């Protein structure tokens, strides 16, 4: 119902404007009766109204405009010549159309008895059939010419300038037309209409503003420039605030606070003008779903929630494509055919739910179906086949990560892959488009139960909240949308929770390993040593990682400004902004950084191999602590992973220790014992394990902790050579045992 009401409201606004135009055109036509151009314009207007009224089942309106259109087409094609009589009857038609539209606005139908459509239709027919007795009409209805004349006189000044109407028509739509329409307060209409049947029902005008009066069409360019200006204002306000903070002039402080308030409200208001309900996009969905369901032999019940959720019009525009795509996918690959559903014990009618709502400054759109879901195993298999990820990576990934692989470009480009995988035609395009507008997309699925796709988008792009961090002399802004949390690590925490793997620092955060990257590295400088770390944990796509920064300033609303073409290709920056002190600060592009530093991709192993090949003499060693303070090292290339297991997960089989790991058994070897040292007291609740893989089997080597990764040329001495130890070397100025990995692994052979 709301949908209809909205469409009708749009129709009314549009038609009223068209009619104003029509009045002007008709009058002008009298001056230059031969003008083909004017006739065409009039014809188009009537044609449009006819089409829409037919669509909305306003039959009387359709009939009237249909006859009018016929007459106009003759005129346009030069089969008839315009004369006073014809003009007269056409103007009557316009008036009647207007009356019918008013009736639609106040009662919701065009069936009002008081509008005399039949007489006008007859008059039009009469003219049409060549009995050029055009005078017939006016004489039959003596009031009519008067009414027409009034319209002619009144309409032009009241109407907006013609060019504005023409340019803007498809873009802007009144935002809240419903209240006027749905409950039109018919009280006033009834008494008025009986005495003056032919006068357009103007009676209700003073009571409340009609659809036409309550909204104004504004050029989108104007809105955009207002947004720009308010952005400037916000910046200036920030600068003023910063200056006045320390001021002793009370009046000035007060005025600047007022400025702060007003600017904020103004910003909010301006932003609202660009907001449009998502219902606009959704209104197209029922049709798409119906057609597709029909085409694919699906039975689908489409439900939509949150039509009124508003977002910036440019975002809405950009969202149309991806959303349509996701809906198509849900139907094509999610919801099964009725037969399959029945066999699976489900309701033969599939359910597709579109939901949208606001959540922490973002708009969330959910598309969920109760179809067959996505099988992570299939996805993983296909992804490995396509070389999107390695088998190793697949084993390490969480189900959610695997499902989101369908958004990877390599995954979805090949048609045969999508047939196997179930979903994914152009899913990378969907993601790219959503990311382009600063959004994220995430897919969750349960096999047999359905799939939910969550799209998050910022409310607006022009002004975003961001965390300002400092690095060196400069400040950088990290969009709040990417921000997860801030972690400060000092002293012991730093040593315990940050470790390096193949030279890559990792942060252990509540049981997860987060890749760390320092701002210095992001900016292409060497990574500094630090006694304390401030980590900004950020999220890009499905990847979470930490950026180590020098300082954290505060969160601010910043205005995103484009940067020049020379810098657009840099993946690190999303734009720039101006800080309170007037200086420029760069905005970091978090997904860009993730990609540029290969955090998100499977590039790491290859680069590591390359490095090994280039630098043959030096070896990367993982330096460990064992047996309560003794140092040992093993070649990093032999380490596939660092793990941490709770002590109570260690199980025993005979004398061997093992943990369940990745659907298998990981035999454990205690390094201290293996290299002839006494084991330290293991009161810890966790054990640190270096996972070594060779020839398809894995061994876990239990150590105390990882100390470092060093790249060094090893000079091995025989000092300390014994079972499990090749010898020793000086690493980082300390004598370190070099572990004979083969011998140590052999010790685990018992359980295999």
């Amino acid at each position: 119902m709301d949908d209809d009401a909205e469409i009708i409201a749009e129709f009314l606004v549009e038609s009223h404007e068209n009619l104003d135009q029509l009045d002007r055109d008709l009058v002008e036509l009298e001056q230059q009766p031969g003008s083909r151009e004017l006739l065409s314009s009039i014809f188009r207007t009537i044609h449009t109204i006819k089409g829409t009224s037919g669509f909305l089942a306003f039959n009387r309106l359709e009939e009237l405009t249909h006859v009018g259109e016929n007459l106009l087409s003759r005129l346009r094609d030069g089969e008839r010549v315009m004369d006073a009589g014809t003009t007269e009857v056409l103007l009557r038609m316009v008036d009647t159309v207007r009356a019918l539209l008013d009736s639609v606005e106040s009662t919701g139908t065009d069936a009002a008895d008081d509008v005399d459509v039949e007489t006008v239709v007859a008059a039009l027919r009469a003219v049409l059939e060549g009995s050029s007795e055009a005078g017939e009409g006016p004489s039959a209805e003596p009031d009519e010419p008067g009414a027409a004349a009034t319209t002619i006189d009144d309409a032009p000044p009241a109407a907006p300038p013609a060019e504005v109407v023409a340019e803007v028509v498809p873009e802007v739509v009144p935002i809240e037309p419903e209240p006027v329409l749905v409950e039109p307060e018919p009280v006033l209409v009834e008494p008025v209409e009986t005495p003056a049947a032919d006068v357009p029902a103007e009676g209700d005008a003073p009571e409340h503003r009609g659809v036409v009066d309550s909204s104004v069409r504004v050029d989108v360019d104007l809105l955009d420039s207002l947004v720009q200006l308010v952005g400037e204002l916000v910046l200036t306000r920030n600068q003023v605030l910063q200056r006045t903070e320390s001021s002793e002039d009370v009046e000035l402080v007060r005025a600047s606070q007022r400025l702060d308030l007003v600017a904020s409200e103004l910003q909010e208001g301006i932003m609202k003008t660009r907001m449009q309900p998502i219902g606009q996009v959704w209104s197209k969905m029922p049709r798409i779903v119906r057609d597709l369901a029909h085409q694919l032999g699906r039975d689908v019940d489409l439900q939509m929630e949150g039509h009124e959720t508003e977002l910036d019009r440019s975002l809405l525009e950009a969202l149309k494509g991806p959303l349509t795509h996701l809906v198509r996918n849900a139907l094509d690959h999610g919801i099964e055919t009725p037969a399959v559903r029945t066999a699976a014990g489900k309701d033969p009618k599939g359910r597709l739910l579109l939901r949208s709502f606001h959540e922490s400054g973002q708009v969330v759109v959910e598309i969920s179906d109760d179809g067959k879901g996505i099988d992570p195993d299939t996805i993983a298999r296909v992804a490995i086949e396509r070389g999107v990820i390695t088998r190793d990576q697949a084993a390490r990934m969480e189900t959610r990560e695997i499902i989101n692989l369908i958004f990877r470009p390599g995954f979805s480009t090949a048609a045969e892959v999508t047939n196997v995988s179930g979903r994914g035609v152009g899913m990378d395009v969907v993601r790219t488009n959503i990311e382009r507008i600063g959004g994220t997309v995430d897919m969750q699925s349960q096999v047999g139960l359905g799939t939910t796709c969550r799209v998050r988008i910022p409310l607006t792009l022009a002004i975003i909240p961001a965390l300002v961090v400092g690095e060196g002399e400069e400040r950088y802004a990290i969009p709040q949308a990417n921000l997860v949390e801030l972690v400060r690590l000092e002293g012991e925490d730093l040593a315990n929770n940050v470790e390096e793997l193949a030279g890559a620092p990792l942060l252990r955060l509540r049981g997860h390993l987060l890749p760390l990257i320092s701002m210095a590295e992001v900016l292409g400088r060497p990574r500094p040593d630090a006694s304390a770390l401030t980590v900004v944990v950020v999220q890009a796509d499905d990847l979470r990682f930490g950026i180590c920064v020098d300082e954290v300033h505060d969160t601010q609303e910043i205005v995103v400004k484009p940067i020049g073409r020379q810098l657009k290709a840099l993946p690190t920056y999303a734009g720039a902004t101006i800080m309170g002190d007037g200086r420029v600060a760069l905005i970091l592009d978090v997904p860009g950084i993730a990609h540029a530093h290969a955090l998100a991709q499977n590039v790491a192993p290859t680069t590591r191999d390359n490095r090994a090949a280039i630098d043959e003499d030096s070896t990367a060693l993982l330096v460990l602590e064992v047996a309560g303070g003794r140092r040992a090292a093993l070649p990093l290339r032999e380490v596939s992973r660092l793990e941490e297991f709770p002590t109570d997960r260690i199980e025993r089989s005979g004398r061997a220790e093992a943990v369940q790991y990745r659907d298998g058994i990981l035999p454990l070897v205690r390094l201290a014992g293996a290299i002839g040292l006494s084991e330290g007291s293991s009161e810890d609740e966790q054990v640190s394990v270096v996972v070594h893989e060779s020839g398809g089997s894995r061994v876990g080597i239990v150590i105390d902790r990882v100390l470092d990764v060093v790249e060094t040329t090893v000079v091995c001495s025989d000092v300390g050579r014994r079972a499990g130890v090749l010898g020793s070397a000086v690493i980082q100025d300390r004598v370190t045992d070099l572990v004979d990995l083969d011998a140590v692994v052999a010790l685990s052979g018992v359980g295999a």
Partner: protein
Amino acid sequence: MGEQSQYCTFWVDGLFFGVGVECVQEVLRYQQLTAVPSAPEAIQGLINLRGQIVTALDLRCRLGLPPRADDALPMNVIVRSRGEVVSLLVDDIGDVIDTSGLELEPAPANVPSVVQDVVHGVLALPDSILLVLDADRAADVSVVPETTGGTP
């Protein structure tokens, strides 16, 4: 291009350059710069030009000339180029000169190619030679793809 005859002139390491006045927006003294790490070398940073972010490009670096002395602050010649505004950092600003009657000649062949690439040609003034800068080409600096850790 049309026949232009008025040039805004400036010096870069002793070379006398001119840019058609119609593409110069303004000339500013030194502005505080925000460095852009990992940007092409010639990009000295970003300046805030009344709320607009403008890329500042050092012409010395762009033309392969030796860097400016540390204590010498560059001037900004703000030009419009390909729909954007770019600041060219130069040593010193000269007058606006009228060169009507003079013929634009191609840059002599022995001028370094990096300079040839960014000029329309030269004008032989009575007392000096004016290099007529092509602001668009001068402002075209592309990012060299990083060799480390590129995306596949």
